[in-house]
Structures are given as structure tokens and as C-alpha cells.
């Protein structure tokens, strides 16, 4: 990531002249990155890491779709053997969940933005922050080992007893998950402490940008849920190595207990993935509508509500496992409670556009795509929450489509929107907006083409994780594969647009979009210490005195 960037001098009204160096040029050399305690550099390193993971997981996804072009009942037509296919979908899931989605927004964008949005010099524990990053690298190394070793084929959920007897390197993979879990815990811990103890004078809780609210809610889940995943995978590793028997029916253990343990973390983890995305969308909708967010408090409260309710619904992954009826019903009821705060957010985002001044640029189009896709993802959750319908849809492609609409159509699209939004601040370069819009359009169409057919596949009974399928499903599968190729192309365009900007992009102004949060009052790219003088904290969504300056191509705040 040692992008050579010339010092950007952007005379800014609220800055003393002479602060020429920025965080990218403050020090040089490999070690200045490898041992940096600067949250911005750590954020960038995370960004490089999660993007590489995403590329890897994405290629695996395309391989899955290519394999499913044919029904593969006749194995000679099949692209991969069953074993290889199982390994591919396992690694696709594991990489996307643990290496990409969970760290994407909090660790990459969050690390970069959180202290700047708060107007502080760094997070509370910079060393711990760097430690989190190296734990992430360590976890990624375990996953790479699983990729190149004999092949992990348990599915990313590691359900016992299959994971106990599988040939794959389950212990390495679970250690990877364990380590990544602690990386996530430490990031969350850092963010909670930073937000609690380091807010500048004047930034009350309800003057915090909504991205920080979302990150805070996320961090709470990270800290409270991830340890349970840690002990679960540790026990699973002990099961493999020592045969402790807690999850092994052959030793009088109970495999359903594993599912409870696993989903106690992994359901809240869904909100680790989606809450920060919602935070990004709140920022994007407001800034690019040049209008305050509609219903600030409702959005802030709903983030916390989702975080709390998220802890109580893990059982809805197990409606068919054979839980007691009462338990099942209670989990179903609690599941529906999560839908309300999510719905409120969508309505508020739409309300934000009302009577605003909507700039239809790349980040905004990604945000609008998010609302469209996330709404579908959320509404299809209603089908899965309704008990009797879930019995039909559970473990079919309907579920696959549902969580891709939420995780990919939601989190990934929001991540891309946020990346385009803050890219100028991070790199000091403007990207080609037209290319960005084209990428948003291709991603949007490709995504829907990939996953809409999968809803129909699911209702018609196509089970998930099938390397081959009965022929009547073929047309829908082919439609989905074509969509996936298109989606891949769209993401490639998005990536190339960003890469292109690094080398040929125009210098970015300090505030290219007209945002009112503190990061836009910081130099572009930010200096090593973010702010040489403590910034004055105002309403993060007060756009009344932000004016466009045609000379710089950016906005500035009227004094």
C-alpha cells in the first residue's frame, strides 16, 4: 500500500498554513507502515487486506456459479468434483464472513474515520489497534493454509459432528477464526473506549455522526458476542485434538448444543456486518442530499435496538433442528422485533431525500442501490421469520438469496459507497465519477440478476450447498450464473476506477461532497495528528452554512 503521493497542499480556511505533510508522507519506508500506530495507516492496511480477501472470496464465488452452470448429475460435465466444490463454497463463506465482511467497514473504514470524526488524534489504544491488524493477518494466514492444505470442507458454520470427522484442516481453520475473533474484539473494545472517553468537548451523544452510533453499536456486539465464538471454536478444536466429546454424539455429546453456541455469536455477527453499513448509508444519504438526516434520534436508537435484539434471535437458524416448540415460537417472535428498527431506518433514509438537493454521484447511487437491495433483503427475512414458511424455505436457495441481499447487496454495496465517498479523503485523489456510476449500474443489475432467480430456486425446493441438482432447476441457475459474471465485471470496473484515480486522479479538495462532519474539516489527506488544533464541534448534519467553491471544486464552511 505504499502509494507514492505527493504532498497535497490545499489551503483551507480553518487551517493554519504550513502543515504540508500528511499521514501518507509523514514517514517513509516499509517499517514506518508495518509498525505504525497511526489509525489511518492501519485502516489503509486493513483496507488492502480486506480487498484482497474479497477478491479471493469473489473468485471462489464465480467458480461456484460456473460449476452450477450444468446440473452435474452427469459428473463428466462437472467443472469440479464434489469434494472440490464443497471446499470452494466452504472457503467462499469463511473468507467472506471472517476475513472480509466483519472487518470491512469497522476495521478498514472505521479505523480510518472514527478518530477523525471524533476530532481526536488516534484511537484510545493505538498499539492494540496494530495488534488487531496483525491478529487479522495471522487469521488470514490460517485460512490461506486451509486453502492450500488438504481442503476444508465443513461449510463456514463448522457444524458438528461433520466437522469432527471431516478430513480437512478444521483445527487450523478454527484457530484462524479464534484469532480473527480476538482481532474483532480488540477493534470493538478500542472503538467503545475511544467514543466513550475521548469525545471532544461539545460532542454530546446526540451530536455524534450516525456512522459513529452505528460503529458503537457494532462494537458492543463485537465485544459481547465474539468471545462466545472464541470458546466455541476452541472447544471444537479440543474436540478434534482431544476428543472431549461435548459436541460429539458418539461420546454422549449434543450436536445441537454446538449450533446454539455457534449462532449465539454468528447471529449477532450478522449485525456486526450490517450495522456499520447502515451507518454509512445514513452519512451518504444526508451528505449527498445536502440535507440533515431525517429522524436522527430514531436512527440512532434503532442502531442500538438492533444491536440488543440481535442477541436474542439466534435460534431462528435452528427452526428445523428439533428445539422445543415454545423455544422455537419465542425465537420467531423475537426475530420479528428486529424487522421494525430496520424498517424505520429505510423510511428515514427516504425521508432524508425529501426536499433535499440530491447529487446523483457514485457514492449516492451506491447508497440508493443499497436501499433497494437491503429492502428486498429485509422483506424476504419476513418469510424466514414466519415459522411455518421457514420450514419449507430453511436451507434452500431462498436463504442463500436472502442473506446475499443483506450481506452483499447491503454491506458490500454500502462498503463500496463509503469507499467512494471517503476515497478522496483517504488518498487525496478524485476518482472518475462517470466510471463510478457505470460500476454502480452494472453491480446493481448484475446483483439482481444473480440473486432474484435464487429466491425462486429456493421456493421451488433447491437445497443449498448442492454440487449437483435436478435438471428442472437449470434455467434459473444459468440466469444466476450470468448475473454473477456481470456482477464480477461491475466490481472490477469499480476497483479499476479506484486504482485509476490513484495514478491519474485529480487532487481532491478538502470537502468534495459538502459534508458537515469533522472529517471534512480535516486536511486532505489528513495530517499525521489529524487536527493541529481541536476542531469546533457543531451539528454534524447542519448544512446551512456549507457553500460550494468552484475554484477548488469542493465545499467550505462559511464563517
Amino acid at each position, binding site marked *: 500500500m505504499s502509494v507514492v503521493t505527493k504532498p497535497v497542499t490545499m489551503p483551507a480556511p480553518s487551517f493554519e498554513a504550513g502543515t504540508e505533510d500528511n499521514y501518507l508522507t509523514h514517514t517513509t519506508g516499509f517499517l514506518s507502515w508495518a509498525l505504525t500506530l497511526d489509525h489511518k495507516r492501519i485502516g489503509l492496511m486493513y483496507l488492502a487486506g480486506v480487498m484482497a480477501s474479497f477478491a479471493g472470496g469473489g473468485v471462489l464465488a464465480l467458480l461456484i456459479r460456473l460449476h452450477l452452470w450444468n446440473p452435474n448429475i452427469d459428473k463428466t460435465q462437472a467443472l469440479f468434483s464434489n469434494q472440490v466444490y464443497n471446499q470452494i463454497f466452504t472457503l467462499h463463506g469463511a473468507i467472506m464472513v471472517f476475513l472480509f465482511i466483519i472487518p470491512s467497514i469497522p476495521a478498514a473504514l472505521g479505523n480510518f474515520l472514527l478518530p477523525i470524526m471524533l476530532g481526536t488524534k488516534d484511537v484510545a489504544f493505538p498499539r492494540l489497534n496494530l495488534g488487531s491488524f496483525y491478529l487479522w493477518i495471522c487469521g488470514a494466514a490460517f485460512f490461506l493454509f486451509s486453502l492450500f492444505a488438504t481442503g476444508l470442507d465443513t461449510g463456514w458454520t463448522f457444524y458438528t459432528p461433520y466437522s469432527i470427522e471431516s478430513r480437512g484442516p478444521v483445527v487450523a481453520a478454527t484457530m484462524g477464526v479464534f484469532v480473527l475473533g480476538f482481532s474483532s474484539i480488540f477493534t470493538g*473494545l478500542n472503538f*467503545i473506549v475511544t467514543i466513550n472517553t475521548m469525545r471532544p468537548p461539545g460532542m454530546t451523544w446526540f451530536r455524534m455522526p450516525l456512522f459513529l452510533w452505528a460503529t458503537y453499536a457494532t462494537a458492543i456486539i463485537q465485544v459481547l458476542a465474539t468471545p*462466545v465464538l472464541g470458546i466455541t471454536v476452541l*472447544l471444537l478444536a479440543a474436540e478434534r485434538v482431544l*476428543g472431549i*466429546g*461435548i459436541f460429539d454424539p458418539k*461420546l454422549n455429546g449434543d450436536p445441537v448444543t454446538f449450533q446454539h453456541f455457534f449462532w449465539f455469536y454468528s447471529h449477532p455477527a450478522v449485525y456486526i456486518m450490517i450495522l456499520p453499513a447502515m451507518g454509512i448509508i445514513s452519512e451518504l444519504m444526508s451528505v449527498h442530499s445536502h440535507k440533515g438526516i431525517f429522524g436522527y434520534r430514531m436512527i440512532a436508537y434503532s442502531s442500538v435496538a438492533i444491536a440488543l435484539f440481535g442477541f436474542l434471535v439466534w435460534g431462528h437458524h435452528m427452526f428445523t433442528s428439533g428445539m422445543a416448540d415454545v423455544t422455537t415460537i419465542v425465537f420467531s417472535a423475537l426475530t420479528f422485533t428486529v424487522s421494525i428498527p430496520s424498517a424505520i431506518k429505510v423510511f428515514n433514509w427516504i425521508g432524508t431525500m425529501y426536499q433535499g438537493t440530491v447529487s446523483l454521484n457514485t457514492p449516492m447511487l451506491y447508497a440508493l442501490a443499497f436501499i433497494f437491495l437491503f429492502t428486498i433483503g429485509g422483506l424476504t427475512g419476513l418469510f424466514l421469520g414466519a415459522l411455518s414458511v421457514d420450514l419449507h424455505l430453511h436451507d434452500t436457495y431462498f436463504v442463500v438469496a436472502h442473506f446475499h441481499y443483506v450481506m452483499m447487496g447491503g454491506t458490500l454495496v454500502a462498503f463500496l459507497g463509503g469507499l467512494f465517498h471517503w476515497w478522496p479523503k483517504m488518498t487525496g485523489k478524485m476518482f472518475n465519477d462517470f466510471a463510478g456510476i457505470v460500476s454502480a449500474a452494472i453491480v446493481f443489475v448484475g446483483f439482481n440478476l444473480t440473486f432474484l432467480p435464487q429466491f425462486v430456486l429456493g421456493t421451488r425446493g433447491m437445497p443449498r450447498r448442492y454440487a449437483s441438482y435436478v435438471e428442472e432447476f437449470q434455467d434459473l441457475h444459468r440466469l444466476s450464473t450470468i448475473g454473477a459474471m456481470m456482477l464480477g465485471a461491475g466490481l472490477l470496473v469499480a476497483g479499476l476506477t479506484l486504482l485509476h484515480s490513484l495514478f491519474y486522479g485529480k487532487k481532491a479538495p478538502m470537502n468534495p461532497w459538502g459534508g458537515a462532519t469533522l472529517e471534512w474539516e480535516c486536511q486532505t489527506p489528513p495530517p499525521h495528528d489529524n487536527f493541529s488544533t481541536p476542531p469546533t464541534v457543531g451539528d454534524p448534519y447542519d448544512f446551512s452554512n456549507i457553500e460550494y467553491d468552484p475554484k477548488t471544486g469542493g465545499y467550505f464552511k462559511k464563517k
Partner: protein
Amino acid sequence: MTTTVAHDTSANHQVEGHEHPSWLAHHFDDEQQQFDAGKMGMWLFLVTEVLFFSGMFCAYALYRNRNPEVFEFCSRFLNEKLGAINTGVLLFSSLTMAWAVRSSQLRETKTLIGMLGATLGCAAIFLGVKAVEYSHKWGLGLFPGKFFQSQLEHPVHTDNNYLWNLSIVPMILLVCFALYYAYGVIIASKFHQRVAGPLVIAALCFFGGVGLGTFLESEEHEEGSPVTHNATGEHAAHADHDHEHDHAQEHAVAESVKPAINFVAVDSTGMHDDVAVTPAELVTPVSAVNQKGMAGLFFSIYYCMTGVHAVHILGGMAVLTWLIVKAARFEFHSKYFGPVDNVGLYWHLVDFIWIFLFPLLYLIT
């Protein structure tokens, strides 16, 4: 948050800035903010630790609820004297840790190092006793889950040098620390002596713990006390009614039957009720308990819980050593004692968890 700031540093967080004292990280405004952040971070970390252990407590609750008689029976194999001693040692170490925090605030470096060293020593005693307990159980074949291979009615203790093997690393460390101390003496460095002294004592404490544990374990063995039905007691009693058992057949059953069908097979054998060993209230036949899926599962949970706890003790010892080094450099004072305070919090949590483990595992009956 900053109300207690009444010192020279108050100037720091304004424009001139960056004249931070060395102990104040550059991104904090003042020592109060730094202390608050550190403390909150530690509390959150402790929350994650509690949740981490809660997974195992849940497993414990589930399986105890499912097979209460297994837990009651197997708990007799844990030597509650050793457990009680370890509880006392840890409680004492909490006292010394709290004292260390106070000393660091008062800048009494000598007391501070002494107290940190005492805490470290207690931790070493704890581990020494634990090593005796573990090696004794391994000698009896009381392994977790699928490796479980004991006959609980008449356990045969085989000495496989487990204790010796467990002592190798502490022995190496003892030698290293002693050499380090000698080095400190040779170059006449007070600093190195201040660091090495407590380390040597702590390493010695481990062997003190081993000695104490071995003594108590063998005492149990000799007494063969009918009140405490521990493993060795039964071993002693076993000679009397040896003839009642059909060794060969039992052995054959345990050996031949694969774990998958173990449960059924042993149920159907309709085993004897060993009156001398089995207390009257225990209705389940010993043989039903004596399986990989029963007693084996109990010992799985025992090793997981105490093992993870022991790993936390080891982690605590590492940070205590780090504190001793810092203390030997006179780094702590009234405005900077956060690390001692936070390690103290952590240490109390580790004790606290043991306070739950001890009755839940050792004192079931």
C-alpha cells in the same frame, strides 16, 4: 472526567501541546483521560473474558443437568484439599496484588516489587499444585473424552513421569532466572537484580507448590480416608474386594465395544453395585458412569475449564513480569499507575473465576 486535573499537565492539552510527559501517550489530553480509557478498556476486556468462560459454564450446566450422577461421582476424584489450598493461595495473591496497586500509587517501589513478586510466587504455587493434580489424574488414566481409559471402581495408578515432564519448563526457567540474577550481580546492576530476584523466587515457588501437592496427595493415599472418596482412597480400598470383580469380562467390554455403541452395550451388561466405593445415595451403577461419554465427558469439562483458567494464570504471570520490569525502572507514580491497576483487575477476575470453579468441580457432594 477531567475534574481532578489540578496539575502541571493541564497546560498540555492546549495549543502548545506535545510537551507530554513520557508516561502520557500523545493522543491523550491528560492523565485522567488516559487512566479512564485504560480502565474502561480493561473492564470491557474482563467482560469478554467472563463471556468466554460463560461458554464453558454453559456446557457444564448442560451436561451436569443431563447426567448429575456422573458429576457427583467423578467429583470425588478431585482432591478437594489441593483445591482448597489453591483457593487460599489465589485469595492471598489477590491481597498482595491489591497491595501492589496501593504501593504503586505511593511510589513505594520496593514494596511494589515485593508485592508483585509475591503475586507471581502465589501464581507459581498454584500452577505447581495444579501440575500435581493433573499428573496424578493422567496417571490414573483419567483423560478427557475419547482418551478416557480408567476403571473408576479400582483405578490403577501408573507413574508415567507426567509430573517430571510438566516440571521441565519451570526447571529451565529457574536456571535461566538464576543465571540472569548472577549476571545482575556480576555487572553490579541493581536493576537486573531487582527484576531477577522475584523471578527466581517465583520459579522456586512452583517447586514449592509441587512439593506441597505431592505431600498432600500421598497423605490422602496413606490415610485411605473413607470420608473423602478420592481416587487413591478407592485404590487402597480396592484390594479388599478385588475378588468381587470380574476383571476380565469388564475389560473385554470396555475394550471391544466401539464408542458409538458403548452406551448400549454397557447398559445391558447389568453391572454389580460396589458398596464399598459407591455411596448409598448414588444409584447409578459405576460401570454406567465409567465410560468415555460419561466420566470422560466430565473430565473433558474439568480439563477445559481448569486448563483455560491455568492459561489465564500463565498470561497473568507474563504481565506481572512486565510490571516488575517497569517497576524496577521506577516508572509508576501517583499519576501513572494504570498498568498496575489494570493488571490487578485482571488478576482479581482470574481469582474470581477460580472461586466459581472450585465449588462447581471439587465440592459437588
